[in-house]
């Protein structure tokens, strides 16, 4: 009692040291406590030994994006479950492919796994840089098939991450391209969401009013394998294009010209001048400022146009699937970030890596990083149908506007096309060549036909080998 009322020098020192220690180590202790508290029962119901690679440390390269940040924040739970330490390294999307390729080609095994672009699996598989995942999936000591429920993951993404029917990367987060439009502007003109590309152009013309700072539509215009070469392949496929003719990659021809002409036409007539240098964040920003009537891009951009701090169009946004092309097809991207296993790892590290991948791609972790996530930014790119059917997830995503979940789900299940882009080991070169060709047509540096013919001429020797 005495010490309570009148702290002695010693007790003062003791308490302040304790307080300092708590401040210093507090977050660590608290995080540990939270991990302990967190219910690991959902994972422990899997009939595998989660602790079989205990004590291992693996490094995982991801991009700095909220969907990976959420995963990183759950890492203490993974550690508590498996005893494996995961060190995350954040690499910007522009560099992660190069860094991974350099790591894989030099066989340094720096990254046990890295967030991987689906277009790179052909390259990785051709060089045997990464392991086939089927062996891990079918090993009963490593995977509880019933618990993991691999078939629940969207077929389009599984297909996109497979080469010759063999899986090389486990989809973690992905997106689907959809039409995003301004309900109010469309209603004022009596328009409906476009069902065909032709309608889409007409709608753009109808709401186009640059004098009052509203442009009809915009698509990604900036050059890059993941930028203009993200939109163009959908158009090309919708116009009936096939990448391979008689086993040969062909990028020119009438369908290609028609698709590129549509792209150029839409951008020149109804998009802001600057859009030819825009990537998706620029488009979403412009749309959220009310200056765009519509755009076609990833469904995940909905979180930007619904950001309460920035957006002026909340409540005025609606969604629809890609408009149909002349071939009658709707073609969405098959984009997802997947996790492969670096073939240069030791056997034990491979096991640890697989456990991490299984954990990250499981329904439970998918839910815990999405609607069950405690932080403010929830994910919208969950990898499996069961999560997309969870009422809580649906409720969360429908906050983005009319029919968001219905449209995205339909697109995910029907519009994803595994042959959206030519899946060959030479993709990095082909993607860049095509991106340059498309941009020279968009900017008027060369004609549509000349740009495509030139690309064909450059691509032929790359394929000939």
């Amino acid at each position, binding site marked *: 009692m005495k010490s309570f009322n009148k702290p002695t020098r010693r007790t003062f020192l003791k308490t302040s040291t304790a307080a300092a220690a708590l401040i210093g180590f507090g977050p660590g202790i608290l995080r540990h406590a939270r991990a302990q508290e967190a219910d690991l029962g959902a994972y422990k119901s899997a009939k595998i030994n989660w602790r079989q690679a205990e004590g291992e440390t693996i490094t995982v390269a991801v991009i700095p994006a909220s969907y990976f940040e959420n995963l990183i924040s759950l890492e203490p739970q993974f550690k508590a479950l498996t005893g494996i330490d995961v060190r995350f390294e954040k690499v910007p999307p522009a560099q992660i492919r*190069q860094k991974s*390729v350099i790591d894989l*080609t030099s066989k340094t095994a720096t990254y046990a796994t890295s967030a991987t672009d689906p277009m790179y699996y052909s*390259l990785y598989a*051709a*060089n045997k840089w990464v392991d086939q995942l089927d062996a891990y999936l079918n090993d009963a000591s490593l995977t509880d098939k019933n618990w993991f429920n691999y078939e629940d993951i969207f077929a389009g993404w599984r297909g996109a991450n497979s080469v010759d029917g063999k899986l090389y990367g486990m989809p973690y987060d992905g997106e689907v391209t959809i039409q995003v439009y301004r309900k109010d502007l469309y209603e004022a003109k009596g328009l409906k969401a476009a069902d065909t590309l032709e309608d889409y152009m007409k709608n753009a013309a109808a709401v186009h009013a640059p004098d009052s700072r509203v442009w009809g539509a915009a698509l990604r*215009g*900036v*050059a*890059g*394998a993941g930028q203009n070469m993200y939109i163009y392949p959908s158009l090309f496929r919708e116009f009936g294009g096939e990448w391979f003719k008689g086993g040969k990659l062909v990028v020119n021809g009438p369908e290609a010209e028609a698709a590129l002409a549509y792209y150029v036409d839409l951008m020149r007539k109804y998009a*802001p*001048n*600057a859009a*030819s*240098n825009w990537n998706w964040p620029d488009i979403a920003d412009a749309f959220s400022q009310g200056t765009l009537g519509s755009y076609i891009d990833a469904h995940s951009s909905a979180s930007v146009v619904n950001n309460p701090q920035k957006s002026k169009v909340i409540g005025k946004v609606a969604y629809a699937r890609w408009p149909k092309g002349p071939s009658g097809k709707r073609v969405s991207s098959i984009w997802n970030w997947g996790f492969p296993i670096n073939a240069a790892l030791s056997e034990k590290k491979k096991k640890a890596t697989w456990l991490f991948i299984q954990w990250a791609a499981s329904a439970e972790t998918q839910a815990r990083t999405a609607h069950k996530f405690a932080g403010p930014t929830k994910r919208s790119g969950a990898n499996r149908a069961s999560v997309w059917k969870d009422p809580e997830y649906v409720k969360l995503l429908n906050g983005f506007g009319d029919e968001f979940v219905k449209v995205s789900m339909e697109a995910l299940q029907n519009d994803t096309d595994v042959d959206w882009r030519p899946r060959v*080991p*030479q*993709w*990095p*070169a082909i993607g*860049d*060549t095509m991106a*340059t*060709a498309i*941009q*020279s*047509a*968009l*900017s*008027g*540096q*060369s004609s549509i036909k000349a*740009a495509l013919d030139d690309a064909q001429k*450059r691509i032929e*020797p*790359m394929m000939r*080998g």
Partner: protein
Amino acid sequence: MASAGNTAATDVAGVAYSDFGHVLAQRERRFATLLLAPAFLALLATTTFPLLFLIYTSAYRMDLSMPFLNGFVGLENYKVLLSDDRFWHSLVVSLVYTISTVILQVIVGLALALFVMNMKRGQGWFRVIAILPVVLSPAVVGMIWRTFMLAPEFGIIDYLAISAGLGSKNWLGDPFLAMVSVVVIHTWQWTPFAFMVLLASLASLPEDIYEAARIDRASAWQRFRRITLPLLRPAIVMVIIMRTMVALTAFAAIFTVTGGGPGTATEILNLYAYRKSFTELSIGYGSALAVALLIVTVIISAILFAIRRGK
């Protein structure tokens, strides 16, 4: 050896002395070598070795996307290069970029130097402010220009263009304007270098010649044309040489501002080599492009040095 022995026999004292000197000199040389060695080896390891490795690589096919085809190809990469339109195009872009930026830097730098020489006050301040762009990283400069200055509708330059009645321009989306933009950016960043060198050299010109000229009633233009320019000539040539070498190997600013686009409108040789090597993963061909750039740079520098020595 025989002659050394001969000398030793004839002049003993001289030999002893020169032997001692010889030993001393040798020791000194050894010591100097020892001191020099770390720096020399480091230089060898970081510049000469990579250069030789680059040349070695350029004789191979090294495609990360198709490793089973890799192997020695001799001069094949160079043969392909000579018939590659995009190589010639990028070479032309490099030359246009270099010539226009160097000429602009010299003219603007000289004009600024002459102007500042005649300033009565604030010379020090002006110098400090003028040098600022040089200390910025080219990548940062590129980002600033791309986002703050040239963005249509929002950028400062575009705002000025609209205010001046020219209308909004797509600065980086139009092939011609994009080239003009990257030339202006490089000039903006590096003119202060030319300015500082020329200013220092102007300040050291002898005043008496000008006095004599004035007595002879030479006009300002005549004084500039007949006195200033000839006296500044060594400094100007030096600036041209240094700036040419840098402009030929420029990379960061263009990479961040246009990435070589739109299309290939601003794709300098350096950028093409980078894209071939690291985006398309054809390391062998990319190395051949880099060697070609090296050859071009060496030839142009040799010509410029020859001109400098010639006069």
